[in-house]
Each structure stands twice: as C-alpha cells, then as structure tokens.
C-alpha cells in the first residue's frame, strides 16, 4: 500500500474528500475521528498491512501524518 492508497482509505474512514489532503490535518478538527473510526483504522491497517497499531501510540496521534507513521507508510 502506498501513501496515496493509505490516504484514500483514511479519508473513507473519516468520511472526507481525499483530494487536497496534505497529511497535516488535525484529526480532532476533522470531526469524525471517534471510537468507531479508530477501530475501523486499526482493522484497516491490519487488513492491508498485516500490522497491529498500538492503541497507546494511536491515542497520541494528532494528524493524518501521525497515522501514516503508525502504519509504517
């Protein structure tokens, strides 16, 4: 999975348009970064990248770039 595909998957989870996303967007300000989105993100990273994101590190993620780092993208 490359960065573009990752951003597309994350944008689907957050229910936002993937165009013009830079990665510096703040998750809290997007509005849909709730418990269901967090669980969907963990499941997506496991399904696509065979990687289990640490819940503790995920709680510290502030931006989409932080999510990409956790996913190893």
């Amino acid at each position, binding site marked *: 999975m490359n960065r573009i595909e990752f951003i597309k998957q994350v944008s689907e989870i957050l229910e936002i348009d993937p165009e013009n996303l830079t990665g510096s967007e703040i998750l809290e300000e997007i509005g849909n970064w709730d418990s*269901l989105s967090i*669980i969907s993100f*963990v*499941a997506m990273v*496991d399904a696509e990248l065979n990687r289990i994101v640490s819940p503790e590190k995920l709680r510290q993620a502030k931006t989409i770039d932080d999510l990409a780092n956790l996913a190893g993208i």
Partner: protein
Amino acid sequence: MNLPTFTSRAPRLAGICIASPANHEENISLADQFGQQVMTDIINSTGIQRRPIAKTETVAELGAMATKKLLFSLNWSPESIDALIVVTQTPDYPLPSTACLLQNALGLKHSTIAFDINLGCSGYVYGLSVVNGLMQSAGLKRTLLICGDITSRMIDLNDRSLRPLFGDVVAATALEAADGPVLTTDLGSDGSGAPYLISHSGGARDPGVPRLFMDGVQVLAFSLKRVATSVKAVLKLENMNIEEVDAVVFHQANAMMIKHLARKIGASDAQLAMAIKDFGNTSSASIPVALSSWLLLAKDSKHEFQLLMSGFGVGWSWATAIWKTTRPDVIEFVQSP
C-alpha cells in the same frame, strides 16, 4: 505453537437450548438519547439491531429454563447427569456457586460434579475443555455446560459505548460420551489486559454495584494479535486446512470484527456463523447461540461436523477448539414469559 494446544477424545454434542428474556431493546430506539446518526453508525458497524434484556431474570433462572427444556427434549432424566458446570461472570450470588443452585433446582443427584467458572468471552470453549477433561478422566457419561451472563445489569444506561452492545442470554449444552468425537484445543491468558475489560466494583476491592468498563480499541488490538495464531495452532495440530472446517464460530463481539477475523484466517461466508443481529454480545453464550443458528441452517443430510470455535476477550483470555462431532439431537430457543 503456543502451549497448551492439545487434542483428546471428546463427548458428542447432544443438544443446545438457548434461553433469553422475552423483553428486547431495539438499538434504533436509543436514537432519541444518543442521536440518530450515532446509532445508525453503531448499528451498521456492530451489526446489532436488538438485544434481549432481562427485567428480573437471573443466570440461574434462565439456566434452569434452558436445561429443563433440553432434558425434556432429549428424554434425559435429571438422575442421569454426572456434571453441571456453569460459566458466568454475573452469578446470582457472590456465593454459593450458581451451579449448586441449579443442581438443586433441577433435582440432580448429589454425586453431580457442580461448580462455576468465572470467564466471559472465552468461557464456552474453556468450559468445554474443562468438562471434557472431567469426562475423560472420570468416565462421565452425560454432562451439562451452562453459559451466559446478565450483562445489562452492569451497564450504565447512559453509557453510549456499551449499552448498544450486550444482550442477556443463557445457553445450556448437553454433552454425551461417545466414540469418535475429538476436541483439539488451544487455550491462553494474558492478565495485562485486565484493565481494558473490567468491572472495578462489585468485588473485594470495591464492594459497590458492578459497572462494566471496556476499551474497544484495546480489545480489537488484542483480538487481532491472538485469535488468528490460536486458530492456526489447532488447525496445525489437526493437520487441517481452514477449507475443511464446516462452521467457523467466533465469539460474537461485533460484526465488523467477526468478518475481519474471518478474512484473516481465510474463512468463507458460508462457513461463518453470525447471530449478532438479534442477540448482541452475549458473553460466554455467544458461541452456542451462533453455533445453534448455523446448525439450524446446515443441510439435513449432513451428519458429521468439524466445528471451529474461538472465544476471546475479558481477561485477556482466549480459547479455540476444533470439535469433530455429530449433528445434535436437539437445538432449541426459548424465552422467559
């Protein structure tokens, strides 16, 4: 391979009876309280539309209802039962064990082996393994495994994260000694997960009312880490591929997780047992509920089954088994009036 993973002779699955309260709560009815969009999202993600909710029923009451019906349908006398094990985390009383209450309520003989096991999500498979151990070592002929919880009493009605998830059900499973059936089991525990699915109150540390807390992200991360490995361990010991399994029965926590785990182990839709829509997460009863639903749809002509069951969660605790057994004589669902 993680130990203990082991295989042994096993009883046959003689029958299952599922007892639930007639009272149900529709998840969409919580829209006024929690918001329409929120509840729509939760229903779509979890797959849970409604859940049986006890008004006054207890595990012993539902357990007695399920067991009496099961014994009647199987034409088994109470005197013929050698053991009754209850798996519950919501016993009628802190003491004595609910199994002792049921021994008395059902009129079982005094030589009946009866005790409780304090487990939830992993409880059915752990319970099956323990009962099988007793059956093989003591030569028992007929036993009962009673599993379930009244989880609703531990949940705050204003808790949006938990209230839409859990249903109150007790499942009675009848087991009978037989030649042929085999049980291959992988059991595990990791107590570092205790803080993430817990009631801090209601025990010796804080004797208040039990109140459930769950960190859903931690539960998911744990499940992704442990379940597929546990499934692979039993398949390897049985020298089987996933395609050879008839039913894949996961603990019914939520639909998204069940489908994800099914994909992870390579199971097909036809193999996957799903019963979460009308019951929710029913703790240790969820595997027998889903298994019963799957077996009712299985072809009449099929007599022998290879059942893969995996329960995982509170503890952390996990238990996976492949049970080679024959079609049960009885599968029933009953409701309290």
